[in-house]
């Protein structure tokens, strides 16, 4: 029998052999069971996306260097490991958190990298309104603090105007 391969990460006997074909190039990784589990690649169902995440040419190196291993979403606590395991994300914020992993993956799985379809106009309108309102409100507080009452009065009028126009829109 051939001599057992050693794990690419530690010196234990490798039992997990992964062959990937990326852009017609074959990449092979040999790992021991515990390293494979650490990298989250033992679950065959969850690994298809991860294939796309490993850039061609540096599959073994990237696996060996868990630079982004500690990446966690501030918003929902989702981890990079979880993402690699399931191929899914935890919340909308995860798209920013894991951006460095996602951008190359999205380019690989879609026709383009920018959305060209339908836009939720009402959601965006409401968001713009809320953003504008909160920025005006903080301007108002600032003006009052600085005792710049002319500015404060102007901002107050703007807020009234903003609320009024939005209400008429909603009343339609």
């Amino acid at each position: 029998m051939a001599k057992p391969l050693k794990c690419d990460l530690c010196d234990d006997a490798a039992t997990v052999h992964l062959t990937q074909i990326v852009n017609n190039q074959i990449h092979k990784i040999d790992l021991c069971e515990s390293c494979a589990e650490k990298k989250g690649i033992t679950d065959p169902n969850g690994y298809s996306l991860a294939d796309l995440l490993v850039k061609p040419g540096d599959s073994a190196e990237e696996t060996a260097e868990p630079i982004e291993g500690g990446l966690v979403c501030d918003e929902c606590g989702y981890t990079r490991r979880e993402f690699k395991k399931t191929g899914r994300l935890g919340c909308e914020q995860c798209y920013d958190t894991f951006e460095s992993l996602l951008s190359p993956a999205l380019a690989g799985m879609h026709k383009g990298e920018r959305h060209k379809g339908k836009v939720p106009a009402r959601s965006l309108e409401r968001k713009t309104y809320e953003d504008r309102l909160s920025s005006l409100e903080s301007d108002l507080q600032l003006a009052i603090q600085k005792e710049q009452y002319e500015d404060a009065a102007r901002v107050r009028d703007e807020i009234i105007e903003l609320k009024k126009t939005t209400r008429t829109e909603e009343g339609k």
Partner: protein
Amino acid sequence: MLIKSIFGGKSEMTESASKKCPVVLMTRIRLARNLSDTPFPGWAKAPQRQEVLETCLPAVASLSQMKRGITAEVEELTELEKQILVERHLISRELSSAPEKAGIVISKDQSVSVMINEEDHLRIQVIKSGYRFKQAWNSVTNVDSSLEDDLDYAFSSQIGFLTACPTNVGTGMRASAMMHLPALVISNQMEKVVRAVNQLGIAVRGLFGEGSDASGSIFQISNQTTLGESEEEIIKRLSSVLKTIIDQEMNAREKILEKDPNKLFDKIGRAYGILQNSHLLSSSECMNLASLVRFGVDLEMFPEKTRNIVDRMFIECQPGHIQHHTGREIDSQDRDAIRSEYLRKQFENIDKPVFAIDETPKPEDQPEAERNEDSKD
């Protein structure tokens, strides 16, 4: 209660017979949407899922499209009810086994269904019989826009609608056509078609989606990519692939009739014989027989009304439907007996096939735009 109303009403799935559609049985579009500021269902904690359900269920149920429809929490449904909804393509298998706090709203005519807390907070689906992407899109985008009046969606101007799985990000849209391709299957060309189509970013699956087999020679063909193109562009690209597949199927039909008509007549004649006389029929055998009879209807061997019976067979011979039809707990052997009894009755008065073919079939499936149909939905 739920099941009764499902069976009572007409369904897009079972009434496609009125339209002359030899190849495309039905068209479906679904949109994946998520609420802003809440984790996706797969990662959300139980109270968060509950909150999403409490927000979405009434919002969806109050849509004008859902008037007199069905609204339910998945937990309230029996296993049989869930199975029947899956067999009618109204909910996904994933939703039927969702952990908790998942919901479903189905319109009265069963053409619109919205799943809550499946992979994404909202999965909005519209089914239309025949080849009608335009109507399906108009209908689904209306539901989507009405919901958006009340709900804040997770959206990025860069990459569009944000979904739990990055494979759906962008439009969040999956458009699919259910195609009946018996000649491509008989002449062993399906593998070639699947390979060619996959390279164009189009996926081919069996009748019940991922991992299901293609019994009955029915295939679901859908877009794989959702980002970088508008909905219209995706549908246009998909339609052009569908058109090519329709042409291939029609060519294959002509070729079979030309080269070896007896082989085909034998298959169709036997199918008719079995349906009239068998006493045990499994659901997969039933699907294949239905497929052959439908092929026969396309070739005008059977009267046009037979198409309706066959299209209903595809759905109503599924295990859950047979189980419900019987009204008591039965095992699969009993189901096979009941299924064959039902079909003997259905085929009792169908005249035997006419095996004289003077004309070769012409493709009649055409996109809605060219068919100039009533587009009010």
